[in-house]
């Protein structure tokens, strides 16, 4: 039960807090999702009746049914799911909602040892440990940002140039027909320039990715703890001269936030521990650069952390400076667990979620 207050047309936003009434906000949301649901029901009834009353009802194919019910189905699902979400959270506090979301975890087994359930909010490390190394225990996977960038450049180049081709064909048809659309030609010139630029950027990224050769990292143990010392082997493929190859341990913070309608991600390296550095390297055909080093996770280090919008990630960074190609950095994420605590504490039961009393 909340004190009645009329909604205000204009409201202030102070950081993440708003001056407006939460109850009115929820009411507005409920009206929006409710209207979508009602529209979905009305559409379904009207369309369903028309189809059933159509003369060739029996011959209507499944695809026609699906296409006809696509719009009302979308309205029903968006409206219904939105209303269900609102009803689940109605009158609940932020903590109550979080406890409700955590409830399924209570049924999961929480074994001891290196069990992911034992370290809430530490990212899972199974994918880092499923590839054995040839000399050390694990071969670390490469952070996939490199491949995604090349894919993104390629997709942009294809889509943009498809539009350019359509415009060019339209301009060509006009020209053959004895007409010249100067506006279309004026638009076409910058479009062609951007299209060529897109192809150049994509080809350059593709060549750079494949020309220098792969980088491999193997480590002796994983996951690690603050204060742990660990052996690492770096393998760098390629042919020719490299000015420098360096290895370092980095801690990166990542935050995802909304700015207007955009979702943005900001990354910041907050710690960098140099591990090893090699200069003036020549790799002969059929060979690869291979060196062993060891590093120590700082004793007072923050553990790896990942939540929905924020993360703290440890990674091994390999900086390569080839003689004939631009220098580049490749990242190999690792997981660092929290500092060790007393073994007896591990046996105490976990914290719980309870309701005392006769209900709400």
């Amino acid at each position, binding site marked *: *039960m*909340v*004190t*009645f*207050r009329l909604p205000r047309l204009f409201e202030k936003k102070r950081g993440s807090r708003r001056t407006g009434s939460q109850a009115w906000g929820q009411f507005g949301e409920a009206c929006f999702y409710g209207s979508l649901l009602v529209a979905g029901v009305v559409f379904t009834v009207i369309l369903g009746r028309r189809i059933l009353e159509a003369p060739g009802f029996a011959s209507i194919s499944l695809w026609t049914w699906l296409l006809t019910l696509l719009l009302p189905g979308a309205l029903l699902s968006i409206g219904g799911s939105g209303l269900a979400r609102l009803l689940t959270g109605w009158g609940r*506090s*932020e*903590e*109550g909602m*979080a*406890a409700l979301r*955590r409830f399924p975890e209570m049924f999961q087994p929480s074994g001891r040892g290196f069990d992911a359930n*034992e*370290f*809430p*909010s*530490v990212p899972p490390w199974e994918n880092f440990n499923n590839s054995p190394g040839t000399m050390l225990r694990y071969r670390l996977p490469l*952070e996939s*940002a*490199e491949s995604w*960038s090349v894919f993104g450049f390629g997709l942009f180049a294809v889509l943009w140039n498809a539009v350019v081709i359509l415009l060019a064909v339209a301009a060509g048809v006009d020209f053959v027909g004895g007409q010249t659309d100067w506006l279309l030609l004026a638009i076409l010139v910058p479009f062609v320039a951007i299209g060529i630029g897109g192809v150049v950027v994509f080809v350059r990224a593709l060549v*750079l990715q494949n020309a220098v050769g792969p980088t491999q990292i193997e480590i002796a143990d994983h996951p690690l703890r603050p204060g742990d010392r660990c052996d690492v082997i770096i393998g760098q493929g390629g042919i020719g001269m490299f000015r420098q190859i360096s290895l370092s341990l980095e801690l990166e*913070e*990542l*935050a*995802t*936030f909304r700015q207007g309608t955009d979702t943005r991600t*900001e*990354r*910041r*390296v*907050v*710690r*960098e521990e140099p591990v090893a550095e090699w200069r003036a390297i020549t790799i002969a055909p059929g060979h690869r650069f291979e060196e062993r080093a060891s590093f120590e996770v700082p004793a*007072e280090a*923050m*553990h790896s*952390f990942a*939540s*929905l*919008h*924020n*993360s*703290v990630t440890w990674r091994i960074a390999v900086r390569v400076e080839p003689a004939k190609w631009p220098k580049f*950095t490749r990242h190999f994420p690792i997981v660092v667990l*929290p*500092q060790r*605590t007393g073994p007896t*504490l591990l046996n*105490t039961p*976990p*914290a*719980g*979620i*309870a*309701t*005392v*009393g*006769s209900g*709400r």
Partner: protein
Amino acid sequence: MSRTAGQERLEPRVVVNFDRPSRRYDPQETVRLQYHVAGTGDAQVRMIERSALWYTEGKGEEDLGICFFERITDAEHLPPTQRQGEFAFRLPASPMTYEGTIVKIRWCVRVRLFFKGRRDFVSEHVFDVGELPPAMPLRQPPTAPR
């Protein structure tokens, strides 16, 4: 904020005393605390929620993880009949309190009072899990990965 005629102005306060004045705990330790609710007058509290949780602060959207949650609805355990309370919970192994540059992790205890016919009131009390030094920015932004 408008008030219904006859409603007295409330200034609720929740005073929390941790079993450790430094409010610093190690992961997997048990935290014990007592609280006292004041300033509610004769207003009827229909429910109290007490919880322990971590949340993120900084540049990103706020994330939240609950460690302990308890709801009290019995009138005999609620103000004005009973103004004190105590509870205990065991901390998980992670996350630890972290003072990063764009990501910060804080632990807190919240006591939320739900009044009859009024807005709810929440009192937050921060404590530390672990003892990590604050992070310092090195460079911004990092070189694009290849």
